[in-house]
């Protein structure tokens, strides 16, 4: 009987090996996949068990914090100001992951970042519950509030930049949404709000300040003017053609001015006047004279055709100057039509570069990464030069013309008492079916520039269609934001 007993023993051994191999496969190799599953509650509990670090404004106003609410899910992510900072913080949701800073800075906020490794080790030894680090942004709460309140019920966006450093002081987008329900511990509340958010045709979760490009219209004339002066053939007083209608080359179509009239006597105008009254035909002429390569090169030195905010991981859209336009398309591009597409951030960058003696600073949102103690700095962002957009002299001339726009031209709504403001309006008509986009971009003080602001209004339900224009709608918001920054 011994030989079958030995064979049975061998069979038993095989069964034991099968069990051991199977649990090794599950616990050592398949574990990561299982832990990553959305229906795995253990991981949800773990996620909520750790105190996530706060996101702060530059003046230490909490944009996002974690509150200890006890229970199975210990920490609740809260956004005290809700809609105000939503485009920046994004949301933190178990079911729908994360967005914006919550996503981009997740490793720091959750405490998993390698830079916090030593601290985690200390926590492990001392038995402290590991906490996440804090993210301090460049956002100025007063400027952000001014921007958000200024937009009100309109659909639009505002970006304010510190011209000398590239720090983004305000980034508002309306309509916005409240990220709190998405951070709820109730999965059904998350689901419900998510469905609501995704079905909203106004797309409140879209950060219009950086994630969506629009036709810039007349504010792009700043780029064309910069290219013209940089070419050396023009200055502020150069007289150029400015007829009521401009013949588009190679076509029998014409391009007219908004007013329907010529921009000066004898169908001629100075560059300053052309910018002041936003003369389409004069800039069309410049576009044809300069050509698309010169315009594109100038645009790229202002940051076009490159993605901004990559360091912060904010998924910003890239503003575009068309690749290979023919002559009429080049002419249209010179006045910000055809296929020129910009974000409000890009227009703020153009303005900030002009303000900063022609030097474009790389914009950024994350000022400082703090350790969980909220005191010691893990990493600080240093201002960085992105490019020289124009010469200091060109910058000076552009500034003079922009001051003229605000003092005597279309941008008078941006005037501030005691402080000289430089600006440019834009009203971009893309589709006869929808209202035009109202733009305004400006900086102040003109003699010692500190802040540049770009504003776009996509839709203003409370304003009659004929009254929609950069000067009327957007300029007052820009002024309010500049006032908030300059105090």
């Amino acid at each position: 009987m011994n030989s079958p007993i030995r064979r049975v023993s061998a069979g038993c051994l095989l069964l034991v090996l099968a069990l051991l191999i199977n649990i090794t496969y599950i616990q050592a190799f398949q574990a990561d996949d299982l832990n990553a599953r959305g229906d795995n509650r253990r991981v949800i509990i773990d996620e909520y068990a750790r105190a996530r670090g706060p996101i702060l404004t530059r003046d230490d106003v909490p944009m996002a914090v974690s509150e200890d609410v006890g229970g199975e899910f210990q920490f609740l992510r809260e956004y005290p100001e809700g809609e105000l900072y939503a485009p920046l913080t994004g949301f933190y949701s178990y079911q729908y992951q994360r967005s914006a800073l919550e996503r981009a800075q997740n490793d720091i906020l959750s405490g998993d970042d390698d830079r916090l490794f030593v601290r985690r080790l200390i926590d492990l030894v001392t038995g402290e519950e590991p906490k996440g680090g804090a993210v301090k942004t460049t956002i100025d709460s007063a400027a952000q509030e001014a921007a958000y309140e200024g937009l009100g019920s309109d659909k639009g966006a505002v970006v304010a930049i510190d011209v000398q450093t590239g720090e983004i002081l305000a980034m508002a987008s309306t309509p916005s949404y409240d990220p709190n329900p998405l951070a709820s511990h109730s999965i059904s509340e998350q689901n419900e709000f998510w469905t609501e958010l995704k079905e909203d045709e106004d797309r409140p979760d879209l950060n219009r300040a950086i994630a969506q490009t629009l036709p810039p219209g007349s504010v792009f004339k700043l780029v064309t003017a910069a290219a013209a002066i940089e070419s050396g053939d023009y200055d502020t007083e150069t007289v150029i053609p400015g007829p009521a209608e401009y013949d588009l080359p190679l076509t029998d179509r014409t391009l007219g001015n908004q007013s329907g009239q010529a921009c000066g006597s004898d169908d001629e105008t100075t560059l300053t006047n052309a910018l002041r009254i936003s003369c389409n035909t004069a800039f069309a002429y410049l576009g044809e004279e300069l050509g698309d390569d010169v315009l594109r090169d100038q645009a790229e030195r202002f940051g076009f055709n490159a993605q901004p905010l990559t360091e912060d991981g904010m998924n910003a859209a890239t503003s575009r100057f068309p690749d290979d336009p023919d002559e009429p398309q080049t002419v249209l591009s010179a006045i910000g039509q055809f296929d020129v597409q910009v974000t409000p951030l890009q227009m703020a960058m153009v303005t900030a570069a002009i303000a900063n003696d022609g030097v474009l600073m790389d914009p950024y949102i994350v000022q400082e990464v703090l350790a969980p103690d909220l005191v010691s700095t893990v990493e600080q962002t240093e201002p960085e030069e992105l490019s020289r957009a124009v010469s200091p002299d060109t910058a000076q001339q552009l500034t003079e013309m922009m001051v003229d726009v605000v003092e005597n031209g279309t941008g008078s709504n941006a005037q501030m008492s005691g402080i000289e403001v430089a600006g440019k309006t834009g009203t971009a008509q893309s589709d006869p079916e929808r209202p035009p986009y109202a733009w305004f971009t400006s900086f102040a003080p003109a003699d010692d520039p500190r802040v540049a602001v770009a504003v776009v209004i996509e839709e203003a339900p409370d304003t009659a269609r004929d009254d929609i224009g950069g000067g009327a709608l957007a300029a007052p918001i820009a002024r309010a934001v500049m006032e908030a920054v300059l105090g």
Partner: protein
Amino acid sequence: MSLNQRLPRSEPANEEAVVPRRGRGTELLLLIFAVGISTFAYINVDLGALGEVPADAMAYLGGFFAVSCIAHIVIRIRAPYADPVILPIVVTLCGLGLAMIHRLDIADDTSHATTQLTWMLVGVALFLAVLFFIRDHRILARYPYLMGLTGLILLILPLMPVIGHSIRGAQIWIRVGGMSFQPNEAAKIVLTIAFAGFLVQTRDALALAGRRFLGIDLPRARDLGPILIVWVTALGILTVQNDVGPSVLLFGSFVLLIYIATERISWIILGLMLIGFGIYAAYNVVSHVRERFDLWLDPFIDPTGQLAQSLFGLAYGGTIGTGLGQGHPDMIPIAESDFIGAALGEELGLAGLAAVILLYALLVSRGLRASLVLRDPFGKLLAAGLASGLLLQVFVVLGGVTRLIPMSGLTTPFLALGGSSLVMNWVLVALLIRLSDAARRPAPTDTPSFADDAATQVVRVT
């Protein structure tokens, strides 16, 4: 080692030197470890879950040690040659099971651990009784048919009116005087004894070959009677209990024994075919079996169900586990029952669960070793049947909770909450102790000196 073994030979007069050979000292030492591990696990649960040492830690340690010592002393008296590893393994498994049940008590606010501890005491009492009253295992071989009948009656009892009742849809319980009992746990042992006794008597006939087919000697048609009767009984259990596990265990044990008794592989092939057919029929007829099979293919159709939660728990525990009291084993529904293996896998990790599986393997190997060494056919068959049956049970239940095979309700021996299972498994261990004692005991006809030692030496080396 070899030097130690030779010592008694050079000093045959020294009786004391013979003692280590019996392994009782080793057993005591291992028991101290077993009790230590059990108590440590118990304290660890409270430390992990509540952050404090349980107030009754010393009482627990003392109680566990006292019970182990009594069992050890009785073995010294009644089965002095017994395998020294068996009892410590069983104590360790019971201790780990208790710790995990206590841990789930904390999470679920229940008090199953006290109940389980009580049943363990009953189990140990029966263990002692078996060692006391069954001095020689061969008396069990006397009435195989009576044993078989008893086993069948035990299986049928839950169907009887008044005493039989069902819990969670399984009609496998009897209730007498307020106490619930699963008679199939007892039937498992009684039927193994019956099979062994029956096969000792009939194995010569069963070993006769009939026709030869594809190089395999098929049994004669007239000898198929017994295996078919057991098969039909197993199918009967399956329909009554709504579950494949107990049937596979019963029938599997019988097939293994018939193979060992006859040394004919054809019985295994025949048995596998019958098992296959039975499971196929069960899949098509019993909806519960089909559900379990579907769940096996895709456990995540029910993400809060036992199997999905078991896998999540195992993954969460990973290689070294969360530590006792620090995982979420309570998220597995009724984890203290069939899924206690998964709960241990979560908190003790791959390392801990592998250790538990190896403890079972070691226990089974000790039983099989006794079977190899025993000289009487009945003892050999009984030891092999009990040991391989135990392993089959562990494989079916742990394989089920780790998704190696479809789930099919069987209890996890010694670990899972459940009085019947725990008590009867202690009885099973008593029989293994008795059998290993017989296996290692010097042959009574030998004179107690050289020959005695030589015989024992062969035992130890095998």
